């Protein structure tokens, strides 16, 4: 039984159709990599799940409950957390305040516990607690974005391009952290340009092309399939 299921989801920006009927599933405690070229509809898919965009038709079901009519806040309350592309931190707030914003809906006690956990995963953030988020380095900002996401206590964490713009050594670190988070039984839906790396980490992969799902399957199989590699993954 899938934790999150999208069926025939169609989304448009004004007159421009972005998703043409996307169906996909994410299982409990899985890492699913959502890959594909620029403009394939990966970010749009995440935004639709998190309620920033509204689907024209189709359904989004999370643990048996329809999400399509809920506000972003209500979706966060259900345990779906979206760490957006480009991090979207609050640049003029401190690292600490950014993390507190991540736990905006959480009770004070839960907030304190999660803060400890985030600092355990990212000790650097604790060092920089009083610094303004806008003054952090790129890697630190990405850590903060993920840390902020964890503060909401996600059961499904959606990461949009977490490795974008990071030095290779930090990319390694990022994927290590994602794996670590997943070991705490957090389901991860990962959008990545770094296809090879993402599929290597993920249990399953979904390849998107021009607003549609092109192919989906176990990531090991996708990586092994020569035609898939050539046609969709550009490897």
């Amino acid at each position, binding site marked *: 039984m899938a934790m999150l299921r999208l069926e025939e989801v169609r989304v448009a920006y004004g007159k421009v159709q972005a998703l043409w009927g996307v169906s996909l599933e994410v299982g409990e405690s899985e890492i699913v990599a959502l890959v594909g070229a620029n403009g394939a509809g990966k970010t749009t898919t995440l935004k639709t799940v*998190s*309620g*920033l965009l509204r689907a024209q038709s189709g359904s989004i079901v999370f643990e048996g409950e329809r999400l399509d009519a809920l*506000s*972003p*806040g209500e979706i*966060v*309350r259900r345990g779906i*957390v*979206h760490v*957006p592309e480009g991090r*979207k*931190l*609050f*640049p*003029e*707030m401190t690292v600490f*305040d950014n993390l*507190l*914003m*991540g736990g*905006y*809906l959480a009770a004070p006690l839960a907030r304190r516990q999660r803060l400890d956990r985030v600092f355990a995963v990212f000790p650097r953030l604790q060092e920089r607690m009083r610094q303004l988020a806008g003054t952090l380095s790129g890697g630190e900002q990405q850590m903060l974005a993920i840390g*902020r996401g964890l503060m*909401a206590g996600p059961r499904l964490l959606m990461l949009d391009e977490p490795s974008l713009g990071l030095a290779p050594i930090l990319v390694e670190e990022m994927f290590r952290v994602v794996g670590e988070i997943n070991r705490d039984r957090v389901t991860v839906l990962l959008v990545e340009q770094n296809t090879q790396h993402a599929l290597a980490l993920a249990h399953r992969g979904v390849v998107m092309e021009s607003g549609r799902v092109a192919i989906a399957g176990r990531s090991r199989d996708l990586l092994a399939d020569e035609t898939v590699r050539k046609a969709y993954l550009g490897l």
Partner: protein
Amino acid sequence: METLIQSLVSGVLTGSLYAMIGVGLTVVFGVMRIINMAHGDLVMLGMYGAFWAHVGARVDPFLSIVVWMPLMFLFGMAIHRFLLRKVVLGGELNTLLYTAGLSLFIANLALFVWTGDYRTIKLSYAVMPLRPFDIAVPIPLAISFGLAIVITVALYWLLARTDMGRAIRATSQDAEAAALMGVNVERTATITFGLGTALAGGAGVLLAPSLYLYPTVGEILVAKCFVIVVLGGLGSVPGAIAGGILLGIIESLGAVYVSVAYKDLIGFVIFLLVLLLRPAGLFGVGKS
């Protein structure tokens, strides 16, 4: 020397009230990206509040602030909820003109209800000013100055230390990200508009004993508001505080050392220079 100190003191005292008006405008701009042309009229309502408390209920005008700020908060929320919410979606120009219409509406309704008579509040304990070191410090202005500081500190605490304040700041920096954190952006906007209105009303209450009031006084104040918030950087609270005090000092020094006739000109020229050279405001943290 005495002249210089006197002008600086006058400038800072008046500036503290400008700052409070500016802060109200700037938080609203931060969250909603709108420039509220009716802000001066909300100040005017606060001034009448103080006046009626004094004349009608025989309450000290400064004391009446504890009633008027919460009331203005609710009034502001109602304005946003029932009037502005849908208009904001139509874009900046529409909102600007809409609030210009609102300004005309409020001012002329006030004119109808209260007539255009000029009114002043006379405080029995404040006829002559204090004179520490031979510098004149009018008592009502000194009290306003103190209260403005208290209110500003309270606002700072609200914005820095509470969830509500963090949500307001977060929304103003990145509304989409704030929504992803579970912030109800629309409700935050409503609360922020209430807050801005309360600050405008509070500033009005504090201004009333030092100035005079009439229904269209907002026209004069609104132009000053723009200068203040731009000096400090649109959307920045500390900027608006600094901008307000700076404008008070510019006006005071300009009138003394240049000419009263040109003091507003100096304000506008500095305003233009800041817009062009430092669009993020003189004090750095605002966004361009």
